């Protein structure tokens, strides 16, 4: 049994220690908002927060999580999260939407630390998140809008 803290709740899961957190979340715990896109940390669709830091859950092993607090798209809370989700909705960023949980998790981690990101900051924080619909024009704009909302 592995004990995990996910979205503020403690969960005991009977999984092998080398099972990626992604599959624990999706197939065992039932939190499917976090997506599988590549399994090799090349697309960012599986991004969740570990103690507030964005990590690729497909490369985070269940046995390595320890006491870290996991936050998924379903467990969002706080000003940065509100700002990012609001900005994403105001600008109608989504198309197919499959990558957007990961995009949003990366953006929240950025905004939580940097309320005034430059274009370079945005590229550095978001370049690991692939969007095959290429919603990038709006992602860039929404991160800026979120920063503005978070500053207010």
């Amino acid at each position: 049994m592995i004990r995990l803290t996910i979205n503020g709740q403690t969960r005991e899961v009977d999984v092998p220690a080398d099972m990626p957190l992604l599959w624990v979340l999706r197939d065992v715990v039932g939190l499917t908002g976090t997506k599988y896109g590549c399994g090799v940390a090349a697309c960012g669709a599986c991004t969740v927060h570990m103690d507030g830091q964005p990590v690729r859950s497909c490369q985070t092993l269940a046995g390595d999580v320890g006491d870290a607090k996991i936050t998924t798209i379903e467990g969002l809370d706080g000003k940065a999260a509100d700002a990012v989700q609001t900005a994403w909705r105001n600008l109608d960023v989504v198309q197919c939407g499959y990558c957007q949980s990961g995009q949003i998790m990366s953006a929240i981690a950025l905004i939580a630390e940097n309320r005034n990101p430059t274009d370079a900051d945005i590229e550095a924080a978001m370049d690991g998140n692939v969007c095959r619909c290429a919603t990038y024009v709006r992602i860039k704009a929404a991160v800026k809008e979120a920063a503005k909302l978070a500053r207010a």
Partner: protein
Amino acid sequence: MFAKRLLEAAGLSPREALTGTVPTRRAFLKGAAGAGGALVVAAALPMPAMAAGPAAPQVVGPPEPRPLAFIRIGTDNTVTVLAKHLDKGQGIVSGLATIAAEELDADWAQVRGEHAPADVKLYANHFFGIQGTGGSTAIANSWDELRMAGAAARAMLVEAAAQRWKVPVAEITVAKGVVSHAKSKRTATFGELAEAAAKLPVPQTVTLKDPSKYTLIGNPKLHRLDHVSKTDGTAVFAMDVKRPGMLTAVVARPPRFGGSVKSFDATAAKAVPGVRDVVQVATGVAVLADHTWAAIKGREALTVEWDDAKAETRSTAQIVEEYRKLAASPGLKAAAKGDAAKAIAGAATVLEAEYVFPYLAHAPMEPLNCVIEMTKDGGCEIWAGAQFQTVEQQVAAAVLGITPDKVKINTLWAGGSFGRRATPNADYIAEAAMVVKAIDGRAPVHLVWTREDDIQGGRYRPLVVHKIAAGLDQAGNIVGWRQGIVSQSFMVGTPFEPMLMKDGIDATAVEGAADMAYAGKIPNFQVEYHQGKSPVTTLWWRSVGHTHTAYAKEAFIDELAAAAGKDQVAFRMALLEGHPRLQAVLKLAAEKAGWDKPLAKGPNGEARGRGVAVHESFQSYVAHVAEVTLDGRGGYRVDRVVCAIDCGIAVNPDVVKAQIEGGTGYGLGHALRNEITLTDGRVDQANFDTYEPMRLSDMPPVEVHIVPSDARPTGVGEPGVPTAAPAVANAIAAAGGRRLRNLPFTREGVA
């Protein structure tokens, strides 16, 4: 017992199914036609059908309004519009709802969207004759049907109010979801009238709104109906479906196209904790497990010996070499006017170019997957990002030995498709059904393709070679144009072949070339087609033939303009005489981009250039102008892209913009660095680390300008793709870079 009967009906003994000895794919397809009835496609497919012309009917679809098929008004005052088309990101659930809600005079806040069930009698695509999404046809074929449905539902609400209030229908008004009678100051919501209205007869004729009265259609401020559920993790994709007792299956498939299983050893795979079964199916060996991770680990532990006797064993370079030889030889004439060879031979200036386009994977963010569960009534239920529902019903039924009406499909939001989910043989649905059959239907099966399966799994945009020669006279007029196109056909051997193959020519391989608008001004014009052959599977890929024909045409016309010493926009404008919609988008994009103003050099003196491309696809008209900077080290940056589109009435202008932004990115990203290559028949790329997708830092700013129009709406999902890459290539050339003829751009470098 139940499953046994299913298998017998499918012509298979239970033993065959249990041991996994199922027919080969070819036999399966033949069997599919026998057991499930031929895959009937009543009407034609995207392109020919869309080329409606002057004989286009007044009403597309049934002449009578069908509000009950499309609109549900709840007593909770919600209006739910059923979308017969798959929303894979293009916003069609919102678009279709907008059309119905407009005529209904609903308040956008009360409108919901839902995918319709699979039922070809109610939900056929009127251009296909089957229920299916593709060819950027969704809005165009639904335009009349949903306006009539909305108007009829509105009339029923008004009638219900008139009866309740005992007032004349003519005195009742409707706005923003409220029905009012001004004289008596009475109002009612749709929800309050819903039950009474549902009991009334459906009107047989309706009067549609004057477009000047539209408040929803054309409104740029409407939010997509999925803008909340796709930002809080609640939107359900097939990948997210969980059924009681469900097993997840991944399939080991032949590493070479055309290969098959010789033998396999499942001992180690079955020892992986969580693995429940290993079965052979026509496409490979399936590992079934309690969850995805165990299935993947189980497949890794599997030992399979493959039979490559009929497999592709060539490398990309060999295929290209063979195609180049074919392109230089006479082919089947897809277009022929005058004597192109003679005209070119006698021309003052002759230009020749050869273009090579690689295989490309669609790589939608959500890899292919679906859930199939046998149901107690002798049927099955499917959860999928279903794109060709009628074909999927027929194929699943044939595999499972049931009738198509017993196949219930739950169409869910799809995480992209770009054409991949629409296959003539419902490939991944068939595979899942074969796995279900192989385990005797004892558990629901979630078939999951990993990203590696997706990148290496074929159904690619074909590898294509174009060879073009053209001649200019002394005045710089094109006197002759001869173009050879070599491409595999993905229509051969499918139910679509009779519609889209004519005299051996695949219409989807030459579209955008054989019918190019410029040909009207070129007295001698010839386009020839050669069918390349390979076991590598290919498929339509966002904008289909236009992915390569628009590039070859626009890159080559650019060279001709340069050789003629003419301005790139003016040269095209003259050739497009008689094509006012193409001219209009070209003019608009050029104006908005400031085409007439010289482009300043980069901050450190870098060379910069501006390029243009214009094209018609799916009856929409698009022009791109791109500005690039060459970095002096062999690289380039796209600084700005300006695009103009004429898609008739823009139902959701913001969605139109989003599709053109995204289509631009899709076109540019692949041209930049994507290719699927083979070494001895094996795919060299495997995942997003080797098939590196466009990323945020690659994406230029994109401005989209929509030409105001009162013409019938046409599609926007695909038309943003074709002109994006050639505009950039032409800009690179204008900046002094290389003419890029061998894609992707990373193959040769720009300077």
